[in-house]
């Protein structure tokens, strides 16, 4: 296990610059705002004294780099500031809402992998068949369809017409897991289409590449059955690719969740960030963007570690 521990240490080292840039991007959002941030925070009708006070309080009168370091210091102590709109603590807001988003994303990821990977395997083993053509065509539809439109269609049929699923809303997972999953089903389906499509495509082409390689041909010549080739050699060699691509989908899912949470009125961080962006509530926007980018970075790390455990050569080579 020494190799894996070493790999994790090296990966963490590589993540430091990425984290610095990502946090700096989040921090500098304030500077993109037209006008003086102190005036925005103080409100339109604040007195010049009050504005000056706030400018000093928030450190807007200091050099940008100092401000960044101060901001980062606070962030590292879970102080993300307060909402300009509701004056609630941003960290509190995020902690309350993040579980809804995580449930949706994990649910969609499981659905996407459970449907997409078998479809990709099926398409690769039946390459050129009608089934393969149906799968690849459906996959190109899956990447082009607007998720939120699919969400609206699902609501119309499954909630409003047939009344199988609730149209909108959510239940906290720890209160009632079954109810929570029931509520999350329609949005998770709408969310998962992109993942299904990407995984089906990528698994198909990765598997085709492996199945077309020299050593598989040798195995085939030695008389190994195609079932044994697929399960013992083909899939084992694309496992790492599958895992990596599945991990990369977390990024896409957080993006889609921003819109889908609005469609399904899910009280997660996705609906909160768009609502806060509309209201120019920058501390909340910053807090959520920061939280999501950290989760993406950690997911990538997790995928690397899993890959290294699956295949020790990876740990040795990086």
């Amino acid at each position, binding site marked *: 296990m020494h190799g894996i521990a070493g790999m994790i240490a090296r990966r963490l080292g590589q993540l430091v610059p990425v984290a610095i840039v990502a946090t700096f991007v989040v921090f500098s959002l304030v500077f993109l705002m037209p006008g003086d941030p102190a005036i925005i925070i103080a409100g339109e009708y604040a007195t010049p004294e009050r504005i000056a006070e706030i400018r000093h309080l928030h450190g807007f009168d200091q050099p940008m780099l100092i401000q960044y370091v101060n901001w980062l210091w606070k962030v590292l102590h879970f102080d993300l500031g307060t909402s300009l709109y509701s004056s609630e603590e941003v960290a509190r807001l995020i902690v309350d809402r993040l579980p809804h988003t995580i449930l949706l994303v994990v649910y969609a990821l499981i659905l996407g992998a459970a449907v997409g990977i078998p479809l990709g395997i099926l398409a690769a083993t039946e390459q050129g068949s009608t089934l393969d053509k149906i799968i690849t065509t459906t996959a190109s539809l899956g990447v082009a369809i607007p998720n939120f439109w699919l969400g609206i269609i699902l609501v*119309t049929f499954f909630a409003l017409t047939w009344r199988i699923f609730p149209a909108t809303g959510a239940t906290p997972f720890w209160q009632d897991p079954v109810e929570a999953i029931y509520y999350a089903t329609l949005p998770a389906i709408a969310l998962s289409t992109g993942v299904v499509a990407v995984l089906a495509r990528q698994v198909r082409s990765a598997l085709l590449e492996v199945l077309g390689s020299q050593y598989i041909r040798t195995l085939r010549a030695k008389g190994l059955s195609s079932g044994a080739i697929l399960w013992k050699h083909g899939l084992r060699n694309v496992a790492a690719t599958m895992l990596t691509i599945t991990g990369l989908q977390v990024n896409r899912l957080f993006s889609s969740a921003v819109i889908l949470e609005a469609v399904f009125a899910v009280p997660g961080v996705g609906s909160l960030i768009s609502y806060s962006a509309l209201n120019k509530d920058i501390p909340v926007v910053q807090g959520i963007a920061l939280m999501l980018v950290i989760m993406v970075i950690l997911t990538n790390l997790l995928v690397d570690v899993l890959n290294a455990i699956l295949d020790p050569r990876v740990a040795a080579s990086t």
Partner: protein
Amino acid sequence: MTDTDVTTIPAARTAPTRAAPPAPARFGFWAWMRSDKRAAVSLAYLLLLVATAILAPYVAPYPPNEQNLLDLLMPPSEAHWLGTDDLGRDTLSRLMHGSYNALYAAFLAVGIGVTIGVPVGVFIGFVGGWVDELISRVIDGILAFPPLVLAVAVTGALGIGLTNAMIAVGFAFAPVIARTMRAQTLVVKNALYVEAAQGFGGSRAHLIVRHILPNAIQPVIVEVTLMLAVALLAEAGLSFLSLGVQPPESSWGGMLARAYHYVEVAPAQMFAPGLAILFTALAFNALGESIRVLLDPTIKRR
């Protein structure tokens, strides 16, 4: 228009890295269209869409903002082919006008991504060293963000509106393009013909503009075409969230938001804008895939 068969182009078949000397891509346009029916249909559809976007004020049956309060949320009829929305506005006319915003948004976002990404990518790939190291880390940092989350955040900071929203999307695209461009520049810059040009005393600027850029840009062309679909979907999504196109201007995403609001009264209203987004995204994707095959015939054989 020369009628050469696309599949016989002496292109990068033997050198998939494209470090080969500049093979002049003299393909016949019509041969390409004939060899890939899906690309032909997509291109025809997109040209029609561009024409619609430009000519909407002249060919749309009604002005896009004309309200007819006696005909609210009407189903499709002879007078209103796609029905009317909650303010009695003609859906077909709004769809036609919305195509302008959709295309404007897609090209603006991708244009910003290219304008930042291509020069940065070529530059860091060419100079290498600590500059490359530093900027590559910045690229990694921006790429870690879920793109739409970054776009929503930047739009929130800049202020809502279509142009700001697309600047934000373009900002999310730039690092993707820069990374591809950098990788290609690394491949091309050590090619013999670049060294030869250098030997003849070509300046850095000359090398980059005349030799590296034209040979490194091919994968970016494919990437950019596929990005048009992503930008289109982003515009629809951001306008759906009211962060993009502002009412009363029409956009497909905004139309979907209104249709969703009245979905129990007039469910038919949600289909046309959704299909418009889907078809346009499909067309950009099909065109991008077709260009990919065209530029690298080795893919086709897989």
